[in-house]
């Protein structure tokens, strides 16, 4: 296994799969976006129900709401795995691997990864492992007939061996998220403080109060999270194939070009 991991260490630019993911979404985004909407619809509904419960002071509804959100998260993973399976099939030129047989393992692995990602974020490093394990669980388990534990070990070894690359990718995505969040906040501020009152003559004092509230900011952060989650769902498959193409000597760029053609 150690030799295999050493082999897969690629010399391509660390962030290339992220660029390729942008290209992929630009060209094929519509096909996978519909599936993604189906994936996140229950999660979005559960999240906004929770926000509503918080803003109306119905705190007793939080436990049930959070349970609903947890179930909706697992639902999202199942659909996201189907999306990743489709992208993987398109990239490899092979028919999509049967998802149902591996789905329970993928969910189990994603559950473990999400614990590392969320609870481990307090000390950062486990969160990086969780981030990659969660993103690449489906491509890894659909591509190879590995047991979930073997897949987890493979991924942990890959992150360990390619920590610099993993940190670069994580930092790039986190920075992009931060920039997007600040950008949206500034845009809101610009709209409510300058454009609407000065140019359109609308009184925005009430609107400003809502927009500066924690509930609205959480809602905006969640929408941005969904956008980035969609991006990472696609990018994780491209990253996995980038790792594999380094091992198999297949040029992923050429494959993508062929797909465009």
């Amino acid at each position, binding site marked *: 296994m150690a030799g295999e991991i050493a082999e897969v260490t690629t010399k391509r630019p660390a962030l290339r799969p992220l660029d390729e993911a942008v290209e992929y979404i630009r060209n094929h985004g519509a096909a996978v976006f519909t599936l993604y909407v189906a994936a996140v619809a229950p999660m979005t509904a559960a999240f906004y129900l*929770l926000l509503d419960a*918080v*803003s109306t002071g119905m*705190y007793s509804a*939080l*436990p049930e*709401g*959070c*349970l609903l*959100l*947890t179930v909706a*998260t*697992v639902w999202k993973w199942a659909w996201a795995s189907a999306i990743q399976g489709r992208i993987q099939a398109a990239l490899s030129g092979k028919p999509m691997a049967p998802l149902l047989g591996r789905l*329970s*393992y993928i*969910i*189990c*692995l994603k*559950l*473990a990864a*999400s*614990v590392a990602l*969320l*609870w481990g974020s307090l000390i950062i490093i486990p969160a990086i492992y969780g981030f990659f394990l969660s993103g690449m669980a489906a491509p890894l388990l659909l591509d190879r007939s590995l*047991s*979930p*534990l*073997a897949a*987890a070990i493979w991924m942990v070894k890959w992150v360990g061996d390619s920590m610099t690359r993993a940190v670069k990718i994580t930092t790039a995505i986190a920075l992009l998220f931060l920039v997007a969040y600040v950008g949206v906040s500034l845009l809101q501020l610009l709209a409510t403080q300058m454009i609407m009152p000065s140019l359109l003559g609308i009184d925005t004092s009430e609107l400003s109060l809502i927009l500066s*509230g*924690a*509930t609205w900011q*959480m809602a905006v952060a969640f929408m941005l999270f969904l956008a980035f989650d969609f991006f990472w769902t696609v990018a994780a498959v491209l990253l996995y194939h980038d790792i594999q193409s380094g091992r198999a000597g297949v040029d992923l760029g050429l494959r993508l070009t062929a797909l465009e053609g």
Partner: protein
Amino acid sequence: MEIKHCVNHPDRHAIGVCVITKKPICPECSTKYEGVNYSREGLEELKRRRAQKTRSGIWSRAANLAMVAQAPLSFYLLYLCYLYTFNAFTGLAK
């Protein structure tokens, strides 16, 4: 055609080759198992390989079971994380 001699009995003609050790063997040294000729060493090796396979199979099954068994706990931890986040958020939203 070259006539091979048994690796254990050089004075006897070999009737076949052990599928594991690839050495020529005479009828006395040959044991037919599952329709295939094995030498004594070959049979020992086959036994060792099968035992190893069974052991690794057991470990693999145990590992898969452990991975599936952690799922309810992880599900609960994910739920707790959401609950703590929203409980903390209620403080901010007040």
